[in-house]
């Protein structure tokens, strides 16, 4: 009866004042002589340990071999991680996990095994588009109107050069049969009885319907359209000028000729997200291995760490969440997160944006954390900016966005165009639309501000998102799109909807080449 055995071990540990990870208990239970193993583990536990982790168990069990090196105490990073991890593409299993049995307790507290080789003077980090403290919207009707007008204004400006733009009301008054062009927000997409598509474009004067014939080349693009994205159409007016037949469609898009900027030296950035501290599923071990690894020679070029939201699991995100939280207090969640952040070498620059689990408003754009929370997370002095924000690292611009709109893109678009399995492809669509969350009224929530902070004014060199807990990256018109995985193992909810998260990976980007390697820590 394995359950009974686990229960016995847990109660034994509790009686001695220890908590334990489930996996650690499982390992103990499956030991040849659980009782003896338990005794050994307790003997070898570091003095200040409160939680018995798998690495404790492993080291204790390994310690039966005469190998004094792995017995607790000072850690020796160089010896722990063997050979270089080869670069991998989408986190498949070729990534070598850290050798098991080498996971001695991590008590780094910011001490570092390696020094970042480079001179800090060479670093540069600039932020653009941070709206923290700049939220001027007061939730009025006019605020909403302004934000959508701003969107059309800014994204439309490039498109107006490409078509012979006429305002919607002007088109209605044009003689039938002529050629016409229009730039506008998608107001409505319908299919007609005969299988054609009717796309209604809206500009500041009104709306005009555009008919996309089902057999035209553009028909396929209709499936990619989201409401409220900006686009231009060209076509022929019907005889009564009540409708126009689409001949061509233009998106704001990334120019094919886009040449990304690169850093002048070999320097790397780790792009992660969705840590979910406080969740029962938060993967301490994987995180510890990750921060351990950052202390190794292998990671000596990693000088930047970008965190795209969901630092903690949060409170009240879904009903009865308190029953599934490891840490119920939201402030404690951030405090513990801060402890984990401390494990990151002190000489790595950290930039973070909030996500939908964080204690900020859910409506986008989300301002960075307030003073109380910044205070809590101050140990590592991270840069905390709004979601979305653009951070430029030694010339390489990274658009950081948590990624809530990806759910919507994946839900609305046909599976071959966007899926959870290949989240980066969903990101391509956002790049093409030059907007991180175009559709209003659906999944994504919008807080109206004086300008649309969700527009991609400048073409980023890297687009970094998270949220969907799947790892995927690729390039779209030379822009590197990366969706980092997460640090939370599969939750019951994810199990019920059959989502298998990519947990415990850190994509590392060479800022001089924009090449990506994936480190696996789970």
């Amino acid at each position, binding site marked *: 009866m394995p359950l009974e055995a686990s229960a016995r071990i847990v109660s034994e540990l509790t009686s001695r004042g220890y908590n334990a990870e489930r996996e650690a208990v499982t390992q103990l239970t499956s030991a040849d002589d659980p009782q003896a193993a338990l005794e050994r583990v307790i003997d070898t536990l570091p003095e200040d340990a409160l939680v018995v982790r798998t690495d404790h168990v492993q080291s204790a069990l390994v310690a039966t071999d005469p190998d004094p090196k792995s017995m607790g105490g000072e850690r020796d990073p160089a010896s722990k991680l063997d050979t270089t991890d080869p670069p991998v593409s989408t986190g498949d299993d070729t990534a070598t996990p850290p050798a098991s049995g080498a996971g001695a307790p991590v008590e780094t507290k910011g001490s570092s095994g390696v020094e970042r080789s480079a001179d800090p003077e060479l670093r540069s980090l600039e932020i653009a588009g941070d709206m923290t403290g700049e939220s001027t919207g007061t939730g009025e009707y006019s605020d909403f109107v302004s934000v959508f007008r701003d969107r059309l204004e800014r994204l439309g400006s490039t498109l107006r050069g490409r078509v012979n733009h006429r305002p919607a009301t002007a088109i209605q008054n044009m003689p039938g049969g002529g050629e016409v062009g229009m730039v506008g927000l998608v107001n409505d997409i319908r299919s007609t009885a005969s299988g054609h598509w009717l796309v209604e474009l809206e500009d500041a004067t009104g709306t005009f319907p555009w008919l996309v014939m089902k057999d035209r080349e553009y028909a396929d693009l209709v499936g990619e359209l989201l409401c409220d994205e900006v686009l231009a159409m060209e076509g022929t007016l019907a005889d009564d000028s009540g409708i126009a037949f689409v001949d061509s469609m233009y998106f704001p898009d990334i120019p094919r000729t886009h040449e990304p900027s690169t850093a002048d030296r070999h320097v790397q950035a780790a792009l992660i997200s969705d840590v979910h501290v406080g969740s029962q599923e938060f993967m301490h071990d994987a995180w510890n291995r990750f921060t351990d690894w950052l202390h190794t020679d292998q990671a000596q070029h990693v000088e930047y760490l970008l965190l795209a939201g969901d630092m903690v699991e949060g409170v009240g995100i879904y009903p009865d969440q308190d029953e599934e939280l490891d840490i119920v207090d939201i402030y404690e969640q951030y405090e513990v997160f801060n402890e984990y952040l401390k494990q990151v070498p002190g000489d790595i620059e950290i930039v973070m944006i909030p996500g939908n689990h964080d*204690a900020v408003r859910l409506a986008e754009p989300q301002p960075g954390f307030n003073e109380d929370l910044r205070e809590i997370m101050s140990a590592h002095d991270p840069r905390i900016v709004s979601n979305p924000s653009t951070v430029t690292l030694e010339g390489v611009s990274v658009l950081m966005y948590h990624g809530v709109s990806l759910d919507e893109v994946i839900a609305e678009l046909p599976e071959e165009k966007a899926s959870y399995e290949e989240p980066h492809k969903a990101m391509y669509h956002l790049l093409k639309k030059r907007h991180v969350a175009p559709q209003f009224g*659906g999944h994504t929530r919008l807080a109206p501000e004086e300008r649309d902070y969700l527009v991609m004014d400048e073409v980023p060199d890297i687009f970094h998102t998270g949220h969907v807990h799947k790892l995927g990256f690729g390039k779209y018109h030379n822009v590197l799109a990366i969706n980092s995985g997460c640090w939370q193992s599969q939750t019951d909810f994810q199990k019920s909807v059959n989502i298998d998260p990519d947990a415990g990976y850190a994509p590392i980007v060479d800022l001089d080449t924009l090449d990506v390697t994936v480190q696996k820590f789970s």
Partner: protein
Amino acid sequence: MREEDARYFQRLEDQLDEAFDVAERAKQRGGDPEPEVEIPVAKDMADRVENILGIDGVAERVRELEDQMSREEAALELAKDFADGRVGDYETRAGKIEGAVRTAVALLTEGVVAAPIEGIDRVELLQNDDGTEFVNVYYAGPIRSAGGTAQALSVLVADYTRALVGIEQYNARDDEIERYAEEIALYDKETGLQYTPKAKEAKFIAKHLPIMLDGEATGDEEVSGFRDLERVDTNSARGGMCLVLGEGIALKAPKIQRYTRNLDEVDWPWLQDLIDGNYTADEGEDGADSDEDDAHAESDESDGDTTEPADDSDASDGPPRAEPSTKFLRDLIAGRPVFSHPSAEGGFRLRYGRARNHGFATGGVHPATMHLVDDFLATGTQIKTERPGKAHGIIPVDSIDGPTVKLANGDVRRIDDPEEALEIRNGIEKILDTGEYLVNYGEFVENNHPLAPASYVFEWWIQDLADAGADTQALEDDPRIDLEFPEAEQALEWATAYDAPLHPQYTYLWHDISVETYCALADAVAHGRVEDDADGDGTLVLEYGESTAVALETLIIEHRQREAENRIEIDDWRPFARTLGCEPRQAVTDGATLEPDGHEQASTIELERTWSDDDLSERARTWGHEEDGDNAIEAVNEVAPFQVRERAPTRIGNRMGRPEKSERRDLSPPVHTLFPIGEAGGAQRNVANAAKHAETMSDTPGVVEVQIGRQRCPNCETETFKNRCPECNTRTTPDYRCPDCEQRIEPDEAGRVECGHCDREATCVESREIDIHEEYRDALESVGERENAFEILKGVKGLSSATKVPEPIEKGVLRAKHDVSTFKDGTIRYDMTDLPVTSVRASELDIDVGQLQALGYEEDIHGDPLTHEDQLVELKVQDIVLSDGAAEFMLQTAAFIDDLLEQYYGLERFYEFEDRQDLVGELVFGMAPHTSAATVGRVIGFTTAAVGYAHPYFHAAKRRNCDGDEDCVMLLLDGLLNFSKSFLPDQRGGKMDAPLVMSSRIDPSEIDDEAHNMDIVSQYPREFYLATREQADPESVEIQIGEDTLGTDGEYTGFEHTHDTTDIAMGPDLSAYKTLGSMMDKMDAQLELSRKLESVDETDVAERVIEGHFLPDLIGNLRAFSRQETRCLDCGEKFRRMPLTGDCRECGGRVNLTVHEGSVNKYMQTAIQVAEEYDCRDYTKQRLEVLERSLESVFENDKNKQSGIEDFM
């Protein structure tokens, strides 16, 4: 049947016949859809079954069979008749099966509920994969009202008939089997099932069922796996099917098996496996899984409503206690207070007994308590309760203990008088005890709940005393002795002289204090002194101490706390002191003997503790339920010189469910006439406006196009929509035509109208222009009324019936005149919460003895002649008590009926009431939702309570119990004159809540058998009280219940009660829930009350309100804000997103948000305040904090927060 009962029913029926005659004459004259009364009278169940089904010959056969066999067996026997064609006129085999199944369901539901007509859509024959035919029964949602047994039997009957008419069994395809399992799980998630078979079980049943269960889609959610099946025409859950398979077959398998065994034609060997849970008899490979499922199933069951009594092995280790259950607290609603947390000290003390206005899912509360819980409880208020059932209707009983309160001045008093409760209400600091809660034995039988330990009460004590050898009869006869509330000396004497337990009024809640507290209290008393007052009995004065005060409060002994004077005063202290083992001792200095008359020896009595802590046995010291030593009762019994029983071992938690109801039933908007006027009458559906309405200048005012039934005059061929030809006044008939070929079709015998050429169903509904102006004027003229006779006359937008026959506007004119409105079926209804009553007093019904005598009441419950208003008489089974509001409304209805008879039908006025006393003796219909049969009742009087009191059998005849259920009354002639089946909506459930048939007399054997479990005795035996201590099965105790008198001469009488109550309407007339204005006021009152009640954990209440009400509201509104639609203020046009033009694209008008800041954060500050004030846990507070910050972030301008000079530059 006794002769007087026969006379009673004869009288009712004579009265009914008289009204019937009037109605028949009227109908023949008027322009109603039918020229006769459309509610047939059913004298018994067989009649009802036949009428409800409309199959001739069923009634006769049912009566024949009923004498010989059970109802279930009769259903099977009738199936044979249907198969052989002896009953029913069906040509097809499917039709025969359908008839048999419907009849079975009707029979098993006593022909009252709508399930047989609404719950079974059709039976059809489909093909198996091997080409053979099988039976498919198509169920619909209303099959729910049939209950599990009838549902299960319907399947058996279908199969039996199938076998008899020679059709093959159904061979389910694999995907169909899988579909059943998936669908049932989906339905359970969406709607919920009483019993949900596990996937394995569902598949097992689906695989073996010899007929296919199918049904209508009832939900929006679709299955994800087994979609688009060939033989299942929906992807949504089929509610009817899920009910039949889950709550029917799966749950009632043992019952079905009883009948399959005796039938040679059907063979369901798999039932045994189903009952044994052996689903895998033929799927060996899944054995392990199924075991696991079983384990789940078992644990699910134990989660059920009934809580198991404490283990037998534990019983010897501590006092017997029912396990607390928190289920009733779930989904607590803001504004509806908790009166007691589960089994909490200070909560309602369970007292067994049945008051005369009690039983049948009700709970008795002292009227003083009703006032003290800030009027939240009123007669008829529903509460959700911890045990024995789920919910109770509250009734006032003043013969039980009232609440005990602590006043601001330090007095702790028990309040047994509602008037006193009102006086002291403002001075209450704490409600220490909410008093007793009366539950009758039958409730435990009905809910199959183990008896919970009884409070020690007078009824039990007097039997203890008799058992100890006292001549209790002599004591009762002694006018100087108040047995129920005796003097302290007297109580002590009985206890010592007879060695009987101490009288309950002097038995305090010793079990609620710990042994330690008990010892400390004994010390405190030993250090106290007795001060004699004028009466000479003295007052015990203790030194004031926090712990002493708390202990006395817990004991709920009346006393006075005078903290400033450092004293606590207790009158009637002797039983208390002696229970503590403290004996009065003469002060030595005085030298005199202790004499009651010794005034001069005032303040010389001292007390002596006669025992020490060490004298207590180990058992007494460690006696307890939750913790060792938390219950001092054993210590008390070792110390006290007499036996002391546990005063209140069972406390019952409860909270408010819904408020009582006594309201007219209006549709929304109210309807005066079922005449269609389209949109022409505006949102108000004002007929006068419609009569003037013109779409454009060129249209004729008042001409409106509506969908209406086409009628034709058989005499002059005139086409009209009226039931009488406007040309020649001949009655018209519906004019059916084929929608394709326009061919006129006459309905065939079965009422089908199908075009033979086109294979299409013909219809008489057409779009037709009607001159409302003309119709309206004509109607006014015909009844001789002017437009200023009423404020407004409201019609309907369109008709929802199949033939769309409109009602004559004349009826609406008169309804409007008398301010009554009609329900969908043409009747006028008044809703009241149902409550039971078995004996009444003329005085409380606002009638006199003469009126009672005129109704056939001759003697009181003791058999004495009826002479004065305070005598109790036993209520006759169909007599009902109207609320004041209902009486008022019935008077209005009667005035309408009189006008209708005189001005429309041209007959004499019938009622001619002057005041409500005239209503006494008049007949009404009682009619419950989900049923299709009305029950005739007779008005006997009136009550100020906002409820409808009637005999429990009357409610049960309507298939209601009294746990907060409500239903309606209609005036008899209104039903007879104005009801028509032609008005009923042509949709699922349209025939529910409509009087398709009426029962003129109640046969106790043919009512909902829940009522049979009500006990009808005047005293519960001592064995019963002792059995409660054992938490025995209620069936193991002998107490007469209604079931025991069924079929005997005594079935209509002898409903005795154990407790009287002064008036059936006491306490507040209306619950505070209804009198308080806004939701905030209600919630404030709810939280305020939770603080005052000792039995309620106010933090928990606040948490539940925030979690269940505020947070979802805030989160939902904030989400809605950031994804909202907008709407034009001028033309109402909606936009998915704010238009870039800013203004309305349609009309250029102003567009605005639909969700504003105000609606998002209206509860924010309140929620934060409540969380703070009631000390909610951090998790809740933090959620609110995060939300508040979100609101600020969205609605506040960061730049304006600290406004400086630069803002204005």
